[in-house]
């Protein structure tokens, strides 16, 4: 375990922050600009994992295991979220025969 921590510490913290930021931005841009629901779900995963990466990095650099414990929680919730999301996706495909997010626009006025 110690090897992993020291391996993580080999890279400076700033780099992790940069990488996470880049990954998060890509994910966010995908969620906002793509219309394919599958892609949106994948981008959401990307955002989750960028945060996970950041948490792990901070945890190792600050010698605080709390951050890594948090990552497990997030992975658990993300798994559940994907399950629900994919189920909605299947229903959507069956009902409107499309995975275009803009098809779901009937819930208004």
């Amino acid at each position: 375990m110690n090897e992993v921590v020291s391996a993580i510490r080999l890279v400076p913290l700033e780099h992790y922050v940069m990488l996470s930021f880049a990954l998060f931005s890509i994910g966010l841009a995908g969620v906002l600009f793509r219309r394919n629901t599958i892609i949106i779900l994948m981008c959401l995963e990307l955002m989750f994992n960028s945060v996970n990466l950041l948490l792990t990095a901070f945890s190792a650099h600050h010698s605080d295991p709390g951050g890594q414990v948090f990552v497990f929680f997030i992975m658990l919730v993300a798994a559940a979220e994907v399950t629900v999301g994919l189920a909605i996706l299947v229903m959507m495909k069956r009902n409107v025969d499309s995975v275009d997010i803009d098809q779901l626009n009937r819930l208004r006025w």
Partner: protein
Amino acid sequence: MVSAQLLAPLVPALPLAGAVIIAALRRRLSGHAAGLLATALIGGSFLCSVLLFLGFDPAGGAQVAHLFDWIRVADMRVGLAFQVDALSLTMMLIVTGVGTLIHLYSIGYMHDDPRQSTFFALLNLFTFAMLLLVMGANYAVTFIGWEGVGLCSYLLIGFWYTNPAYNYAARKAFVMNRIGDVGFVLGLALVFQVFGTLDYTTVMGRADGFATGAPALTAITLLLFVGAIGKSAQLPLFTWLPDAMAGPTPVSALIHAATMVTAGIFLLVRSSALFVLAPLTQDVVLVTGLVTALCAATIGVFQNDIKKVLAYSTVSQLGYMFVALGLGAFSAGLFHVTTHAFFKALLFLGAGSVIHALGGEQDIRRMGGLRSATPSTYRTFLVGTLAIAGIFPLSGFFSKDAILAHAYQHSPWIYALLVAGAVLTTYYMFRLLFLVFFGSYRGQAHPHESPAVMTAPLWVLAVLSVVGGALNLPHVFGGHEPMKHFLASAASGVGLEHLHLSALLEWSLMGFSTALVLLTIWIAYGRFAKQATLDPEAEALPVPQRWAARKWYLDELYERLFEKPYGWLSTNLSALLEQRVMQPLMVGVGGTAERIGELLRRVQTGNLSTYLFAMVAGLLLFLFLTLNGL
């Protein structure tokens, strides 16, 4: 002997239990069983009252059975407590005794009514409330009973609720009573402010500290009298009582003749220590009673409904009782309450028996000659009529004579007016008797005598109406006025009564009124028994009689004075305030919300991308603000 502490709460508890049980089981219990249960419980209550009476020592003063503290706020401590003394015992015996007989009678009278169980539950509930009223050890408990009897009266007048006229009568009774109740409540508040307590014993004890004519006492007594006016049907609030005859006849007998309407007299006797110190109020009571007695008697002469005649007679007799109270003759007033309970309950039940015999007919112009068809009813009704007319030696003679003697001592004019009232009473009562039972039958029904369950109470009440005078036999007849001495232990006002007429004067007063009454009977016999003189409708009568037949236009007057202006006010307020002010205001508030919504709903595009953009934009905004330390 069981202690009063245990027995006293049992007296009202039994009818309450009856009301609850019958009301809960009214779908499973047959009407007959409900009647028997109700009668048995009131009978038990009567038995408890008798035991209390036998174990009561007037010299020992009032016994108070304190159940629990009901209200406890700051200095105010009001307990649910029952007071057993000479006054409450007298009323308890009347309420439960006459009540038992009327319950028994109702089993026969109501036997084919589909809502018999409800009727008995209400009758039991009424008895409970009435017992609460007379047994309360403070004004608050009396007030619960006061409101309770008003409610039961309302429910029982409107018992046959499918008839709109009956519902109207019930509502009228309720509203009229409420006007009086306002006076009672205000009186209650003033009693608490002046005396710091509502307990009867304490209030009456502290009354001695006030001078005669003290303004506080005058105000209190006037307000209490307003309450009494409403409940006991005196001018100007008496118009509800004749209309209350819409209820079943046993209800009229129990509530609107024997018990509830005497609650006002009870209240005044209960507070006699205050009234003797307020001469102004006493004069008001005297005048009100006198005017009511005469006014109602003149109306009674022209009524053609058998129950209406009796109703106006009740109002008139209640007027006599108030005259007695106004004269300070509290024991005479309560004596008349007692004998009146006997003979008026008898008359009402007799009238019920006649109505029952004729299958619901109430118009005396379509009766006649019922002497042979309904012999028991005829004989008992005759006893009741003789008693109310005040023929020696029936109970009415003694109680009425006591009031007349006190009136003569006060002023011969009051005496003369009361004798005139007595003559009118005799006239309309014998008119009723002759038109119903003499001559030949003028209707189409087939009269038949009522069953024994109905005639038995009639006979018991007839016996009581005959011998009831012995309760307070005056000195000139060798008696010692036992009721007066009994009551003196409870109501201090009774102790201040003094009748100092010479025996010769008393004899001649009695002789005078009796001679007039006999003369009236002879006139009535000539007019109504030999050949029935039937009155036409009110419109066809000559002028002074027409006024009396139309109840002195009191209903019309109230309509003009209160109903019409109220209706006018409502219509105009509706047109002005409601339509012009409230309506636009309310519609405006709603409309504004609607218009704002109309604008804002465009935000909900239904497009997920837009929502996501908005969310991210919002998050960025907060992030920006946080980073800038805002």
